[in-house]
C-alpha cells in the first residue's frame, strides 16, 4: 500500500484514540479520586457517568469565549495554541508495538506513527517549547496571579527538565541508541530463563533509581500534585490560566493530560520494556483478564444485582468485555493485540499512579520544591548516570 495512505490512516486512528482517551482520562481521574475519598464521583450522565466527558466537551465548546480587555491579545491567543500543539505532537514518535502484518493482507507496518533515530529527544524538545505556552499565558494575561503562576511553572519546568534528561540518559547508555524502537528491541532478551530484560531489572537495580527520578520529574514537568504550585488555587486562583475561558481553557487542560500520557508512554518504553510482557509465556493473560472482568460484570449484572435500577449497563459491558477477551485469543489478531495490551496496561498503571498520588499527597511549598530539584534530584540523577556509565563500561 502507498506509504502516504498508510501513514494517513495510522495518523487518523492514533489521533482519534488519543483524543478520546484524553477525554476519558479525566473521567477516570474523577472516578478514582472519588473512590479514594469514599465518594461516588460523576454518576449522572450515562451509566457510571460514562458520558460525562462528552457533556463536558459540549459544555466547554459552547461556553462564552471571553477575551479580557487588558490582555496582550496576540500572545494571549498564541499561548494555548503552542501548548496544545506541542503536547499532541510528541505522541507521533511513540512506538506502541513491534512490526506487524495487517490480518488478511500482506501489508507490513509498525505499530506507531514513526520511528526517528533521535526519537527520545523529540518529547524533550516538545516539552521544552511547551514551557513557552505557560510562560506566555501567564505574562500576557496581565494579571498578577496569572503572572506568578506562569513564572512558577516555567522556573519549575526548566529546573526539573535537567534531572529528567539526566535520568533518561541512563537507559540510553544501556541500550546504546536514541531510537525508541531499538531501545525496546534491546530489552527483548530473556534472562535467567524467566524474566524479560526490562531496563529497571538490569545492572543491580541502578536504572530503577533513574526510573524513580524520572517519575518524580515527570510529575513536576506536567505540573501535577504534589508539584502543582503553578495552579495552587488557594494562593493563585488558578495560576497561569486564570484569565482563560471556554475552549482556550480546555486547550490547557488537554495539553496537561496529553503531556501526562506521553511522559507515561516514555517511561514505559525507556524503563518498563515497552510492549514486552514481564515473563515469556503469558500470551493467554490479556484475554483472560478481559474475559474474567466480563464474567464478573455479568455476574453482578444478572445474578447478584449490584445496580438494581439499571439492569442493562452491567450485562452489556460484561458481554463487551468477554468479546474483547475472546478477540485477544484469536491467533490471527494476537501479534497485534498482545503487545498493545502490555503497552497500554503499563501506561495506564503509571497514569493511575499519577491519580493515586494526586488523591494522597498535599502540595509542596515553593522553596521546598526548588530545593528538592537542585539539592536532591539533580545530584542523585548525576550519581545514577555515573554508576550506570561505569557498569556499562565494565560489562560491555
Amino acid at each position: 500500500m502507498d506509504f502516504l495512505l498508510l501513514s494517513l490512516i495510522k495518523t487518523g486512528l492514533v489521533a482519534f484514540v488519543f483524543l478520546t482517551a484524553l477525554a476519558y482520562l479525566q473521567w477516570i481521574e474523577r472516578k478514582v479520586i472519588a473512590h479514594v475519598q469514599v465518594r461516588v464521583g460523576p454518576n449522572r450522565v450515562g451509566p457510571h457517568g460514562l458520558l460525562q466527558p462528552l457533556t463536558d466537551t459540549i459544555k466547554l465548546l459552547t461556553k462564552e469565549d471571553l477575551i479580557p480587555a487588558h490582555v496582550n491579545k496576540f500572545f494571549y491567543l498564541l499561548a494555548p495554541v503552542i501548548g496544545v500543539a506541542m503536547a499532541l505532537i510528541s505522541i507521533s514518535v511513540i512506538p506502541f508495538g513491534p512490526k506487524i502484518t495487517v490480518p488478511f493482507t500482506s501489508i507490513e507496518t509498525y505499530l506507531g506513527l514513526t520511528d526517528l533515530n533521535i526519537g527520545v529527544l523529540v518529547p524533550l524538545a516538545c516539552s521544552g517549547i511547551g514551557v513557552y505556552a505557560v510562560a506566555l499565558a501567564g505574562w500576557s494575561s496581565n494579571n498578577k496571579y496569572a503572572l506568578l503562576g506562569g513564572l512558577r511553572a516555567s522556573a519549575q519546568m526548566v529546573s526539573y527538565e535537567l534531572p529528567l534528561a539526566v535520568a533518561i540518559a541512563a537507559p540510553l547508555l544501556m541500550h546504546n541508541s536514541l531510537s525508541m524502537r531499538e531501545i525496546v528491541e534491546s530489552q527483548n532478551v530473556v534472562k535467567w530463563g524467566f524474566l524479560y530484560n526490562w531496563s529497571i531489572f538490569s545492572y543491580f537495580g541502578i536504572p530503577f533509581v533513574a526510573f524513580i527520578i524520572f517519575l518524580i520529574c515527570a510529575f513536576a514537568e506536567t505540573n501535577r500534585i504534589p508539584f502543582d504550585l503553578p495552579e495552587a488555587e488557594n494562593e493563585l486562583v488558578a495560576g497561569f490560566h486564570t484569565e482563560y475561558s471556554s475552549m482556550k481553557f480546555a486547550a490547557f487542560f488537554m495539553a496537561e493530560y496529553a503531556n501526562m500520557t506521553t511522559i507515561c508512554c516514555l517511561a514505559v518504553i525507556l524503563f518498563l520494556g515497552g510492549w514486552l510482557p514481564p515473563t515469556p509465556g503469558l500470551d493467554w493473560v490479556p484475554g483472560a483478564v478481559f474475559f474474567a472482568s466480563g464474567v464478573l460484570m455479568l455476574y453482578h449484572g444478572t445474578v447478584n444485582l449490584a445496580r438494581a435500577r439499571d439492569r442493562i449497563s452491567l450485562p452489556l459491558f460484561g458481554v463487551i468485555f468477554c468479546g474483547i477477551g475472546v478477540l485477544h485469543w484469536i491467533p490471527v489478531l494476537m501479534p497485534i493485540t498482545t503487545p498493545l495490551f502490555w503497552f497500554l496496561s503499563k501506561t495506564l498503571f503509571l497514569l493511575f499512579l499519577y491519580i493515586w498520588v494526586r488523591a494522597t499527597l498535599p502540595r509542596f511549598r515553593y522553596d521546598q520544591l526548588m530545593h528538592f530539584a537542585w539539592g536532591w534530584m539533580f545530584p542523585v540523577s548525576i550519581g545514577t548516570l555515573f554508576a550506570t556509565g561505569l557498569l556499562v563500561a565494565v560489562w560491555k
Partner: protein
Amino acid sequence: MDPILFAIFAGIAVVCGIVMVTQRHPIASALSLIGVMGSLAVLYLLLGAEFIAAAQVIVYAGAIMVLFLFVIMLLNAGAEPKPLRSSYLAGFLGVPMVLALMGLLGYLVKRSFPLDVTVRFGDFTGGSAKAVGDALFRKYLLPFEVTSVLVLIAILGAVVLARKEMD
C-alpha cells in the same frame, strides 16, 4: 519538496530575524529569536542532521527560556517608546551602507567557496548522535574540553556578579 521546504523555512528565519531587531517589545523579540532557532532546526533536519536539529531546539529554546524569565521577572520591561523623530541621516547613509555590506559579504562567501561543489539535501551524514559524539570526544576533544572550562568560568563569573552581598 526539499527546496520548497528550504525556501519556506529560510524565509521564516530571515523574517523572524528582522522582526527580532525591529520589535520594540522585548518579549516579542525573544519570541522571534525562538522562531529563528526553530526554523534553523528545520534546516538542519533537511540537511540530514537530526541530532543537531534536536539539540538546537532543546538547548537554544531552553536557553532563551531563561532569557525570557529574566525579561519578565527582573527587567519588568514594557514596549520601548518610539523615538520622537527619526533621523534622516540614518536613512540616507544607513540603507546604502547596509546594502554595500551585504554585497561585500555575499562576494566574499562566493569567492571563498569553490563553485563546483553544490550542497545537496541528504548528502550530509555527520549529523547523527554517534557522529557528533565521535567528532566531539575523539577528533575535537581538546577544543571541547577547553570550551567547557570556559563556559564554567563564565557561569562562576555570573554567579559572583549576581550574588547579593551577604555581610
